[in-house]
């Protein structure tokens, strides 16, 4: 047994270990970075989606800004009240209430709307816009190539068989990534409590809308005339009806009277969380 083998091996590795240990220890002193421990605590509490809804470039940036006292603790939209409360706890502040919001797709056209030409290209709505604003007959409506579903950081959007995106409300955090991504601006963030919404954005005249889409708003003003609210909660301007979410009482009269079926009563068409049919839900 050649002991010199063992000695040489131990010497080489031991020397390396000592040199590296000392070197790293020195380097960690020299390159020490000051960081606020609160920023790291806050970052650990955030949902790490880096969606940017707070207005900062990612969760780390928001955490640093909160720790530096530049912004309040309730800005994280996906985190909601729970995260806001925890962030406020770390900073020793009080978190303010923010009403729940959700994304809504303001279009029912989808496969009901005929295409003006066959589009064969990059399967992205933003790319399709380069080709004469998309292939759909209605230039205000959803193109249906699924860009919103692809960019949603929470997987809350699924493209349906009808050619429209379906928002899974339990997962939607109203971060607004889909709103920014949609080139037709067809998705909007609305308060979750509003149940009546006009699912169309077409500013075309009624006759033109009828030619391309069987469920588009034709601006007939029947909804406006039947609205019981003083000062009307739904107005028609530029051939498009719009609901005023502040004053709407969600009575549903305009939904019944609309000849095209454009207005959505979300008591019926939102997917219920507990598996019951929407019509069987308790009317809030």
């Amino acid at each position, binding site marked *: 047994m050649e002991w010199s*083998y063992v000695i040489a*091996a131990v010497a*080489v590795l031991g020397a*390396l270990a000592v040199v*590296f240990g000392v070197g790293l220890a020195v380097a*960690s002193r020299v390159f020490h970075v000051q960081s606020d421990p609160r920023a790291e605590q806050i970052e650990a509490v955030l949902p790490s989606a880096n969606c940017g809804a707070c207005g900062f470039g990612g969760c780390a940036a928001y955490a640093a800004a909160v720790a530096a006292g530049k912004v309040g603790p309730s800005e994280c939209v996906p985190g909601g009240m729970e995260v806001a409360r925890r962030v406020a706890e770390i900073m020793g502040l009080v978190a303010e209430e923010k009403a729940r919001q959700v994304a809504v797709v303001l279009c029912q056209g989808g496969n009901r709307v005929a295409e003006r030409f066959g589009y064969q290209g*990059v399967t*992205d709505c933003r790319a399709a816009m380069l080709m004469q604003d998309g292939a759909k007959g209605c230039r205000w409506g959803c193109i249906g190539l699924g860009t919103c579903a692809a960019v949603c950081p929470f997987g809350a959007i699924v493209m349906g068989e009808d050619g429209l995106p379906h928002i899974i409300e339990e997962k939607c955090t109203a971060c607004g990534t889909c709103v920014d991504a949609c080139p037709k601006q067809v998705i909007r963030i609305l308060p979750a409590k509003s149940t009546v919404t006009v699912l169309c954005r077409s500013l075309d005249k009624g006759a033109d809308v009828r030619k391309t889409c069987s469920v588009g708003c034709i601006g007939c003003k029947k909804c406006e005339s039947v609205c019981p609210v003083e000062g009307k909660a739904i107005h028609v301007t530029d051939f498009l009806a719009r609901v005023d979410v502040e004053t709407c009482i969600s009575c549903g009269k305009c939904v019944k009277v609309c000849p095209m079926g454009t207005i959505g009563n979300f008591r019926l068409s939102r997917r219920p969380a507990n598996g019951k049919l929407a019509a069987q839900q308790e009317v809030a």
Partner: protein
Amino acid sequence: MHVGYVEIAIGTILISNMVLARFLGLCPFIGVTRRTSDAVGMGFAVMFVMTLAAFATSLLYKYVLIHPGPDGFNLLVALGVVKEMPADGYVLVLKTVSYILIIAVLVQFVEMVLRKSVPVLYKALGIYLPLITTNCAVMGVALLTTSDWKYQDAPLSLGKAVWMGFCGGVGFTLAMILMSGIRERLAVARVPKALQNVPIAFISTGLMALAFLGFSKLFGIEL
């Protein structure tokens, strides 16, 4: 065949590209090339670590681990730890352990330096930086630089070893940038569902490797 700096450059970047011909560094190659910005950052970090690693391991190899030759210098002999270096190279078994230690320490060091001096790049690389340690590309380059050479009697000089490490990094970065460009286009193309993402990336890599195969024996270089 004379192994000069030009031969090393062409051989390492084009003829035996680290990724496309030697299969080194495939995990980051598939993992980081979804966006070109990520690929470029990772590529440069790997280039930096590879050059430093080639330098350190080459030093260790030439002056500690091998028989120094008639006029050479060996640290172990000089310090009196062993009377003379054995011709059968038993100390060479320490190659694997010492190289990986060197690389792990280097990566830790680079992480610290980046965090202090270029925090934006540090945040951008995120978890990929510590993953360079287990990147076979860096370890592979270290092993290649210090292995028996077909065309020389002695190991590569220090300058050529460092140059080879650097060119290995350049080849790796080149392959990553090419791949990320292709994958960004593939992400919005109509790919059959079963082939989406990883499978089509591999098939594209295969076609790229086929193209690079055309460089073999370029200028008579066989590296």
